[in-house]
């Protein structure tokens, strides 16, 4: 169902003829391509702490970014004032990147609409009463405290936004989108009651491109609250993690951050075009064991990382990055696909109108395999099972990545035994997936709270993973050396 939104036309009096003239101005010094990115975002957020609402915040951000591409050079300027004079001024500044006579004399825009709507929402959260959102936070708080008397602190944060965008390109495309997004996060601190007063924390949360009715299904505020509380309680009895190389089993869902860090960033086309990635020039080569197929899919309904169109107006798609272990494709934006002479993948994203687009991931996950998770765990004589993770990071050039387990256990004789704490895993992107020896049949996507940072820009993303076994990865604990 194609969607074309009149929002900027109706609210700010934009007309197509003006957009065409701004684009003409942007190409006034002879750039190859120009686009305008209009954005209007409203946000609301709540913080519940000590069982009371400590903050309620609303925000409005409006602006227009003008980009001009000339060869491999980008000129960019933005304005938070949508008056014609200010947009023209921004177009003039962005035009400076090129040096020559205007090449495109007139741009004729055609409203194309988005081909699909992956996130139809009947009642956007930003139009719902604040009281409804307060109640979600209160429910989470009560459920976490009721879960166990050792839960001493609960913090719940709720945030939502609705983003209207309009993109007009000198290729004649005029696209709009309307992007809802919300999340609820719960953070708990548990204190042991055995006299030592040890403290531990747990977090959980979920959301997506959904309305408030998301929380009426099985993913209730109570569900996330109990999960955060459970993690904190489990950690109370955790011992120090071992240190050194060992066999590691990653649980399903959020541990898919491994793919995001180890593989995903290294496949973003900007790094590869410049020869700056550990994966540069490796399309067609083996980068994973033959049971690994990894995709980046911006089209999954209602997921946090999904988009109808990327921030350059290109429809998103299902991109196979690694097929049975062989590297198939990079993630492209307009600039890199032009220069690499390949097709677009719908991966050009930006944090806001104040930012230059670049290739980014959407929802990155590994397809399910054939083993059952029980079989995988039973096959490990001595190792570690990582069920949940915090954040991760990667050095694109040498491929080294790191991520921190927030819930992990020892595996001894094929059985999950003691919880361990403070475990960071470090590995090498191009080789880590070649050591995947088992892939489970239990693919799960994360709950929908992930945010990815690159060069100072944050965008919402998703990850997913079935249970997998990696034959060798370094675990960074403080405990006695393994092996």
């Amino acid at each position, binding site marked *: 169902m194609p969607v074309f939104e009149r929002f900027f036309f109706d609210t700010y009096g934009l007309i197509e003829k003006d957009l065409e003239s701004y684009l003409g101005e942007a190409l006034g010094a002879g750039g190859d391509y120009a686009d305008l990115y209009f954005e209007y975002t409203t946000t609301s957020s709540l913080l519940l702490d000590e069982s009371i609402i400590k903050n309620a915040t609303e925000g409005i951000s409006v602006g227009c970014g003008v980009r001009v591409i000339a060869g491999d050079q980008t000129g960019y300027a933005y304005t938070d004032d949508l008056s014609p004079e200010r947009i023209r001024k921004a177009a003039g500044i962005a035009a400076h990147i090129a040096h020559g006579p205007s090449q495109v004399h007139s741009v004729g825009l055609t409203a194309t609409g988005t081909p699909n709507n992956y996130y139809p929402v009947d009642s956007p959260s930003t139009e719902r009463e604040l009281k409804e959102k307060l109640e979600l936070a209160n429910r989470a708080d009560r459920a976490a405290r009721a879960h166990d008397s050792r839960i001493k602190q609960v913090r719940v944060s709720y945030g939502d936004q609705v983003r209207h965008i309009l993109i007009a390109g000198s290729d004649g495309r005029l696209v709009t989108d309307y992007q809802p997004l919300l999340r609820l996060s719960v953070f708990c601190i548990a204190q042991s009651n055995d006299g030592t007063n040890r403290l531990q924390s747990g977090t959980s949360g979920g959301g997506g491109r959904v309305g408030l009715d998301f929380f009426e299904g099985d993913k209730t505020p109570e569900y996330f609250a109990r999960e955060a509380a459970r993690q904190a309680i489990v950690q109370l009895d955790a011992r120090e993690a071992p240190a*050194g190389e060992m066999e590691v089993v990653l649980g399903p869902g959020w541990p898919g951050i491994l793919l995001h860090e180890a593989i995903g960033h290294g496949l973003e086309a900007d790094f590869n075009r410049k020869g700056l990635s550990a994966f540069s020039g490796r399309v067609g080569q083996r980068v994973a064991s033959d049971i690994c197929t990894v995709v980046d899919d911006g089209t999954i309904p209602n997921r946090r990382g999904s988009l109808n169109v990327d921030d350059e107006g290109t429809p998103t798609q299902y991109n196979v990055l690694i097929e049975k272990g062989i590297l198939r494709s990079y993630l492209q934006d307009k600039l890199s696909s032009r220069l690499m002479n390949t097709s677009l993948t719908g991966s050009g994203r930006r944090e806001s109108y104040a930012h230059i687009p670049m290739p980014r991931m959407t929802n990155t996950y590994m397809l399910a395999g054939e083993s059952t998770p029980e079989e995988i765990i039973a096959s490990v004589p001595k190792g570690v099972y990582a069920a949940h993770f915090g*954040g991760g990071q990667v050095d694109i*050039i040498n491929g080294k990545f790191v991520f921190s387990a927030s819930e992990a256990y020892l595996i001894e004789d094929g059985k999950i035994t003691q919880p361990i704490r403070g475990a960071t895993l470090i590995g090498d992107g191009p080789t880590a997936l070649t050591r995947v020896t088992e892939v489970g049949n239990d693919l799960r996507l994360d709950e929908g709270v992930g945010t990815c940072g690159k060069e100072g820009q944050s965008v919402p993303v998703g990850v997913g993973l079935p249970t997998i076994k990696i034959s060798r990865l370094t675990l960074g604990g*403080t405990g006695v050396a393994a092996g």
Partner: protein
Amino acid sequence: MENGHLENLAQDIVKQAMKSGVSGAEVTLQEEEEFSTTVRLGKVESLKESAAKGLGLRLLWGTRSASSYTSDFSSQSLSRLVARTVAMAQITSEDPAGVMPEAELMATEVADLGLYSPDVSEIGADQKIELARRAEEAALAVDPKITNSEGSSFDSTSGTRVLANSLGFLGSYRFSTCSVAAVPLAEQNGNKQRDFWYSVARSLAKLDEPEKVGREAARRALRRLGARKVKTAQVPIVFDPETARSLVGHLFEAARGDAIYRSASFLTGKLGKQLAPEYINLLDDALRPGGFGSRPFDDEGVTSRVTPLVEKGKLSHYLLNCYSARKLGLKTTANARRGLSGPTVVGPNNLYLEPGTTAPEDIIRSVQRGFYVTELMGFGTNIVTGDYSRGAAGLWIEKGELTHPVEEVTIAGNLNDMLLHIEEVGTDLEFRSSIASPTLLITGMTVAGA
């Protein structure tokens, strides 16, 4: 940039809010100009120039509060924002700690701390591009093994910050920063490594020569070539100033009042306790001339000051805004920070560890076998427990000499123990952000590798 119109706007919004019956109002306004360029392999890769503005509002309805943010300054939009914020404030929770600051805390004069220099916006784009170009050129010229570059960049911002509140406070100040950075790539026998270096200052005149930045970036990338894992071991660890600074950052996270009153920090209840050896002093100084965290008043209008966090190894103060101070029955330390779009939180001013008496070279020389850490990765720090485990890269130390580069290892410990085991503090304190530390030597940590 004149401050007058912004000051008037801020006061107008406070007045408008007070007319609608709120019991307190606080308006923060910021206007800034931004420039950034990246030069890669001698050519401009990107050029960005813009002006941005934002207004943050906080209103009190009795002891209930709400906040809001907008980048749209049209009077119609601002009136609607005030009305919506008033409506929100009426339905949030009663919270006696969240009321306006005590009037006597408000800054009565706005000290000139040297935060603004006009030269940052006076030079043209071409000259700024040239600075970035020179940094990259210098990096590429250092060695034929420097084969590629992620680019060099020049960034600058300058702007004005205004705060007005219903206690009658009105203050504003201008600020500027500029920086030049280089990110070269070194390559040998198929092994690729990158590193970076940068210089940052409030004024162009104080920026390092771009050639110096480029050469240092190249030196750092080259020394990583041939990096390998080491065997898992417990050895002394030397943190260079860039990585040591992150430890001071963790200490801030643990000593901030909001973490303390929630018991969400390993420093909860440790006021007055010995945290570190006697030669450790940690200060938060908002008044340092030209400091990156300096400001004449904090984001609640409270007079800036110097707060010792750790004195002779003892935890002497938490860092507080008005809210966390009330929760703990203490006085604010003027550490309120507000990013316009969010609530007021606790933030560092210039937080630094006082330099010691040993030169950094001598610290390395004193280590028989250890790890000199120059880069940390990931988020493996737990402020609640103090557990610390992060990815690391750097150089191996044997008999006081740097021998070979190291990568793909982690270092782990617990911040409580790490603080007690700071054995040496270097003389090399340099302010490159609002948080700074000299070189540190810490014992008792585990390096995990092969």
